[in-house]
């Protein structure tokens, strides 16, 4: 077991701790990373929809967007690969390491125990999200799950590969790269954390893009951001509570998202 130096009891948990590299670059890197993710979400969906329109598969742009939405849990891999590429570029530029973004050393059993704590602490978010879904869509399956329709091979990819890629990219981008840079710029960790949670939730409004009444379904986009907000707030708070250790959060998210993808693939949702 690797020992970690405990921080002083008087030291706020939000200060950089031993084992965590100090931020080398400014908030520009954070903007590039978030901008890349949003641009990739929109670009991939619109690009694939455009290809289908060109191929004459469906008549209108709206129809083709809705049809493409069925694949969102698969093409998410492209967004996460793009995110990893930007993280890699930033690390090379700043002479940092990917492991350094994950926080202080964490043993396997600490990751496992921490992940159980993260899953337990996520229960209120699950309840809130379920109530919100019930209020907006009643007994119906929420649209982001209802639209998913892919062949078996793509389902396997969506269960085995995509959730893993998502954990390597998404929380590392927001909590490992964006948050420390905002903290350094703003000097107020609570404000930086609030901005990260809001921006992170807003990103979810970009996928899947669904249409309603000839335009983008804004009600669904708002629901999507609102339903993930408590999860993201919980995980960001836990990031601090765990002494900036990302691995337990990544492990818990992987279990959560992987189980959701598996349930969808097996037809257990809806």
């Amino acid at each position, binding site marked *: 077991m690797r020992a970690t130096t405990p921080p002083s009891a008087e030291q*706020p948990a939000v200060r950089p701790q031993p084992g965590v590299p100090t931020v080398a670059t400014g908030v520009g890197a954070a903007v590039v990373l978030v901008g890349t993710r949003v641009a990739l979400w929109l670009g991939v969906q619109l690009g694939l929809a455009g290809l289908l329109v060109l191929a004459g598969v469906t008549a209108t742009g709206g129809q083709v967007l809705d049809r493409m939405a069925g694949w969102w849990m698969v093409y998410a891999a492209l967004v996460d690969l793009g995110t990893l590429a930007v993280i890699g570029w930033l690390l090379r530029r700043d002479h940092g390491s990917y492991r350094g973004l994950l926080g202080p050393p964490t043993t396997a059993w600490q990751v496992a125990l921490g992940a159980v704590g993260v899953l337990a602490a996520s229960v209120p978010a699950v309840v*809130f999200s379920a109530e919100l879904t019930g209020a907006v869509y009643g007994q119906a399956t929420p649209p982001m799950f209802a639209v998913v329709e892919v062949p078996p091979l793509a389902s396997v990819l969506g269960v085995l590969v995509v959730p893993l890629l998502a954990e390597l990219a998404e929380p590392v981008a927001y909590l490992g790269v964006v948050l420390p840079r905002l903290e350094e710029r703003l000097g107020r960790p609570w404000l930086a954390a609030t901005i990260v949670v809001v921006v992170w939730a807003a990103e979810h409004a970009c996928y899947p893009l669904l249409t309603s009444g000839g335009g983008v379904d804004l009600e669904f986009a708002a629901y999507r951001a609102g339903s993930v907000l408590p999860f993201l707030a919980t995980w960001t708070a836990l990031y601090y509570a765990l002494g900036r250790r990302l691995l337990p959060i990544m492990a818990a998210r992987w279990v959560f998202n992987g189980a959701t993808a598996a349930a969808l693939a097996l037809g257990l949702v809806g």
Partner: protein
Amino acid sequence: MHDRILYRLTWLAAAMSLGHHLDHLIRHNAVGWPLTDQVNAFTLSLLVYPIIITGLLAYRAGRVGPGFWALVSGGGAGFVSAVHFGPAAVEPPELILDHYQPPVLGWLAFGWLVTFVTVLAVTSVYETRLWWQQRQAQRVTRPPTGVGIPR
């Protein structure tokens, strides 16, 4: 050695608990003694205040540490979750959401409850880490006993 963040989180959780009890008072459903003559989960939940006051005094005196607070916060999160979110919940979310006009107030009260339980759970995780770190620190600083001492 007292942890400032632990104090802050404890006060935050106590304030959120008070707010949730206030929500019970406003709705006047799922309440018990001393508001009615029935002793129920509401009555039991009021025990948290003497526990917090006693715990703060004991923590200040060095009698209890973060391990105690991890149990209090974790136990609180478990209790409130079971009462409100569990499969056999005595006060499910509908009892909050459907008892306010306009409905947005119900969502505010429900959001408060969700945040309250999350604060308790996150606080418990933080206190568990603090407890573990203190244990590790004590193990490192404890002088060796007997082993290797030349006779």
